[in-house]
């Protein structure tokens, strides 16, 4: 059973006091250790300069589950995703992803994580197929992953347009290619930041089975669509503006209205 952390009403006062005494927090040994947790965060802090973007984030995500990260703008959701992707290092706190501590053992986790963020991470002067072949080479897929690329392109209905330069494609097509890129190396951990952006309902339907729940795969889903997030997720991590945790616990039993109230979004 996962611990549900509901914070008391005077949380804000305590946050202020904590800031005044010391900005950096010393990490405790992980309070929650789950033997099969894909992600374990213990008192994660991230600062940019003197501004804290993530404060004291603690959660354990078991393997094969999906966690929805909710929160208003400025809550640090994208920052959290980048830390999990090993692109950003935590300022302090314990971070374990796929059994590797970050940032020391980040190299072990790389290649097993797929990131679908705001940036499609595709070179505009290359075609979709060339981009995917490049990715395949970077991840060491044998045979440049030719068959896998063909299969994925077929799934997202981009086979015919795979040889056009990315700069000539519409945003929806680029997003579909980005989905292929993120899944190419069959990651164990999938990090999704608004995966449905730029996609019309038909395209979203094409992409959904690819990004859906899968036994060998843990997912972190950042979304503004609270209903969608709650429907997809087993766990919810709700962040308040300023990056502190408003709720970390099971998704079941939580209604959309509750979730919004917790992190201070508009109902």
């Amino acid at each position: 059973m996962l611990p549900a952390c509901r914070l008391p009403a005077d949380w804000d006062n305590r946050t202020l006091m904590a800031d005044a005494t010391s900005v950096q927090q010393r990490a405790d040994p992980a309070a929650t250790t789950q033997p099969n947790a894909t992600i374990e965060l213990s008192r994660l802090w991230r600062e940019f300069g003197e501004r804290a973007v993530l404060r004291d984030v603690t959660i354990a995500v078991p393997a094969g589950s999906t966690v929805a990260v909710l929160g208003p703008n400025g809550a640090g959701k994208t920052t959290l995703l980048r830390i999990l992707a090993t692109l950003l290092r935590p300022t302090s706190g314990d971070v374990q992803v796929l059994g590797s501590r970050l940032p020391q053992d980040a190299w072990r986790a790389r290649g097993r994580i797929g990131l679908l963020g705001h940036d499609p991470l595709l070179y505009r002067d290359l075609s979709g197929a060339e981009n995917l072949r490049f990715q395949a080479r970077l991840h060491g897929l044998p045979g440049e992953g030719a068959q896998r690329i063909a299969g994925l392109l077929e799934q997202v209905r981009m086979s015919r347009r795979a040889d056009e330069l990315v700069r000539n494609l519409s945003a929806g097509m680029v997003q579909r290619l980005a989905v292929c890129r993120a899944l190419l190396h069959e990651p164990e951990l999938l990090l999704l930041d608004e995966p449905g952006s730029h996609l019309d309902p038909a395209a979203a339907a094409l992409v959904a089975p690819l990004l859906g729940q899968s036994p060998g795969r843990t997912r972190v889903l950042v979304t503004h669509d609270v209903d969608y997030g709650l429907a997809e997720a087993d766990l919810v991590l709700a962040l308040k503006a300023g990056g502190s945790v408003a709720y970390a616990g099971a998704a079941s039993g939580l209604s959309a209205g509750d979730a919004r109230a917790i992190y201070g979004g508009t109902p």
Partner: protein
Amino acid sequence: MTPPGNETETAPAGYRPSTLSALAAILAKDLRVELRTLQSVPAMALFAITTFVLFRYGLDRESLSGGLAAGVLLATVLFAAILAVNRLFVAERDEGGFDAIRLAPVDGSALLGAKAAALVIYLLVLEAIAVPAFALFFMDSWAGVPPLFGVLVLADLGLAATGVLISSIAANSRARDLLVPLVLLPLLVPVMIAAAGASRELLAAGGPSYDGVAKWLAVLAFYDMTFAAVGFAVYDYLLED
């Protein structure tokens, strides 16, 4: 629902490409983009030839040899190189491909090595155009040209080593177009000193002489190794976010 694709073809988790094959992949990607967009090399070549014309009028000379020839040629190549250095990492940053490389299980040295190799290739192509143009414009005999390429290759390696370092620092900053020439040019003074020292002998009026060229080549080689070593030592810190 299992993802599509032939299961036996994907690599098992934890498999990584060798640094060299990752370097080759990134280099191939860069060369393909350059061939398609032609953003660096034609600009460098055009710049070089126009600069030669400027020098012809600025110095009021129609024929150059020895130290003067070495100076004009090398200064032009150095400034043309800055154009390419400016563009090295910009495409990665702006077009967002950078994170894709950082997410992959490749060592950071593959990225920096690929960029350095790309820069050397661009410079060699530039020199293949600019040096014959220079000889055509200013020189009476072409005898000194082939050995000159030996000097230029070593100078290009030095340019690449420091250029990649400074370019990766500047790529993330404001006013990056200003910062690269500002910081890079003082760093390149020893390259200029050594390359000019060797070239002035090779381009001497009476035909190439090899007097003292070896010591200048040694200085160039030492410069190349020093900054390649610095690059190897710090690349991890350059690629972090």
